[in-house]
């Protein structure tokens, strides 16, 4: 093991990897800080470049970028009341209210340190939990892999924002896209329309660039004229002291947020956004901060906001790391970014799953080290970003859109040195745009494209092996456990709705209670 860690350290300490980590960190911070630009968009734009890198720097680029982007999303939340990434949406109002009260940089500082601590907790969870699950997964046959993939697909639909039925339709579209090309049983071409280049299937990278890159540009160019957003003045100096005091006061919240983020993020299909919302709801509904004992109503409200940010911000970064648990152990993505990473790893000849723990331990340990390094690097770079946030937000949107199109086209062309991929980017770009307009979530499409071949291959292998004896899918012990999990996941929909409404009522009641003495 020590030998593995040593060789992993050598891989990470390589000058190319270090350069890639720093560049992707800056890229993640800038993209995450711009409203509407998600970490998934940043990952989609990075993919064409990772294509030309060795596996470790490629993984490093995506991990570092996503850790940075998730924190950077808090910057426009605090300054403009627009979440930079969906993970910051839960506490946007609180962060902006702190800015209004002259505590914006303290709110951002607390969010940064909570993100780092949450990210480190998630990384530790990843390091200890994924090998256990990986070992368990060694006992999996095609039946179990089929059910794990079904669990991932079910979770993707359940956590869909908006209607779950729309999530279901999005998932089917993704699965349908995954069937394009030669099939696994007879090598028969499907949905290729006589185009031989489509025999190998729809290129995943082109689909991602279209769904997240071009669709964003389409949205921007067809947007209605809006108002210019004034950027509030913030004082960057003297932030560290109050930040650390804020974190110390809310250490329990950082801890509980990290645990919630770690657990929720590890659920296939859930991810950092959902983790942040749940941690926010829990922190708010269990808050004990009240006005009184030298604390005015306004101070109590600000302290509650900092408390909520500590909980939710630690959760989203913990979720980023723990989303890699199912990715590494089963090869099932935890969220859209890990789905993109799986696509990159497959191109690099690395199959995520139990084999990683047996045969590619140096790559595995490198990945662990990168997680720790990325989270530690976030601390200085994050404080720097808070200082220069006004400048980053002033990057003209028009120029950015031109650059996204240029990178998207180059990236698509570079996949195969051909124009088919550019066509696919346009097709998926228009699809992403229309889906967003219709309120259809994009995450299930991505998971459908990635998990489709896994579901189909394992299903067909299983039924051919047993001559269509479908009872085998239900009678094996591990399969039975997985089926129970799928059923529980489906049953959790009404339960989550009920818990949500209950937490909302509690928040409202506490708010009312805390206001009464202040107003009196």
């Amino acid at each position: 093991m020590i030998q593995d860690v040593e060789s992993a350290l050598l891989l990470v300490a390589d000058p190319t990897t270090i350069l890639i980590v720093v560049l992707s960190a800056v890229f993640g911070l800038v993209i995450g800080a711009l409203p509407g630009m998600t970490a998934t968009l940043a990952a989609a734009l990075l993919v064409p470049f990772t294509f030309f890198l060795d596996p470790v720097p490629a993984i490093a680029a995506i991990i570092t970028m996503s850790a940075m982007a998730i924190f950077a999303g808090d910057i426009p939340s605090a300054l403009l009341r627009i979440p930079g990434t969906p993970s910051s949406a839960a506490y946007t109002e609180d962060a902006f209210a702190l800015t209004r009260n002259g505590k914006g940089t303290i709110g951002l500082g607390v969010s940064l340190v909570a993100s780092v601590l949450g990210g480190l907790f998630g990384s530790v969870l990843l390091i200890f939990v994924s090998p256990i699950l990986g070992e368990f997964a060694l006992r999996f046959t095609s039946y179990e892999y089929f059910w794990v993939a079904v669990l991932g697909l079910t979770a993707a639909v359940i956590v869909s924002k908006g209607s779950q039925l729309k999530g279901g339709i999005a998932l089917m579209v993704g699965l349908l896209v995954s069937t394009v090309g030669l099939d696994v049983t007879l090598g028969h071409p499907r949905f290729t329309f006589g185009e031989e280049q489509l025999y190998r299937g729809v290129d995943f990278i082109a689909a991602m660039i279209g769904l997240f890159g071009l669709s964003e540009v389409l949205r921007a160019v067809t947007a209605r004229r809006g108002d210019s957003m004034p950027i509030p003045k913030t004082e960057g100096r003297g932030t560290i002291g109050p930040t650390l005091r804020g974190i110390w006061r809310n250490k329990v919240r950082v801890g509980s947020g990290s645990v919630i983020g770690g657990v929720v993020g590890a659920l296939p299909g859930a991810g950092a956004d959902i983790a942040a919302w749940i941690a926010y709801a829990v922190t708010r509904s269990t808050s004990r901060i009240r006005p009184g004992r030298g604390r005015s109503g306004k101070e109590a409200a600000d302290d509650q906001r900092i408390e909520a940010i500590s909980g939710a911000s630690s959760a989203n970064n913990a979720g980023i790391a723990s989303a890699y648990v199912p990715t590494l152990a089963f090869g099932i993505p935890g969220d859209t970014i890990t789905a993109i990473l799986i696509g990159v790893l497959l191109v690099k000849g690395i199959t995520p799953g139990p084999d990683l723990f047996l045969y590619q331990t140096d790559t595995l340990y490198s990945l662990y080290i990168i997680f720790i390094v990325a989270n530690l690097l976030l601390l200085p770079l994050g404080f720097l970003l808070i200082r220069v946030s006004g400048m980053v937000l002033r990057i003209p949107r028009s120029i950015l859109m031109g650059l996204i199109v240029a990178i998207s086209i180059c990236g698509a062309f570079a996949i195969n040195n051909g124009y088919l991929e550019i066509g696919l980017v346009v097709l998926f770009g228009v699809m992403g745009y229309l889906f967003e307009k219709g309120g259809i979530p994009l995450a299930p499409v991505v998971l459908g494209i990635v998990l489709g071949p896994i579901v189909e291959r394992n299903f067909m292998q299983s039924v051919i092996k047993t001559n269509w004896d479908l009872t085998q899918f239900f009678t094996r012990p591990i399969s039975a456990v997985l089926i129970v999990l799928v059923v529980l996941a489906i049953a959790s929909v009404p339960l989550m709705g009920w818990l949500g409404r209950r937490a909302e009522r509690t928040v409202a009641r506490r708010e009312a209670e805390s206001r009464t003495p202040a107003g009196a």
Partner: protein
Amino acid sequence: MTAADQAATAPRGTLRQNLLIGGLSVLAGAIVIPYGASMPYIREGIPGPGLFPMMIGGLLVLFGVLLPLSTWIGARREGHRLRRAGVDGTASGAEAESSAESDAFALPGAAVQEADGDTPVEALETAGVMDTDVGSDGARRWINGAILLGGILAYVLLAPVLGFPITMALLVIAIVRSLRASWLAAVLTGVLASLGLWGLFEQVLLVQLPDGLIRGF
């Protein structure tokens, strides 16, 4: 307008939209199922390549039917609830609005957390302006969309002739300019992006981009 009326108009737009999405989903399923059925079988009665597309098609039809149906049932139930509440005289407009937009999986906490004594937004000292205002009005929006998609098509057609640097620069200039940036900003972005990507992909990543006119330079 009563609270019940307000609640009824909001879901009506959603119902129309979901009816369209559901209809398209059913149509896609109706095309995919026969296509899957027409594929070869592994042996008599055992489907092979067509099995998965057929299953996906079936679920597309099912979800496509359920989506508008569930929206309609939800809207009716909401209407009943509000009418009952209206009779009791307890429904406020705000309540109606929030429940009309309610979501089965909406997690709590999005409500604005205002406190007494918060500094008003107008009193904020500002340090600059963010350029979010790239949007346009009326037909201009659709012209911009056409410039983007038509520009990419033109790139595919012209890149082999004019070469990557010139075509890409023209495309980026057109897009940046369509978003109301100045000519200087558009030309600078186009030229620098094109040369930067040319250098990166051709020289560093060794990807052969189309040379066109500049072949041999």
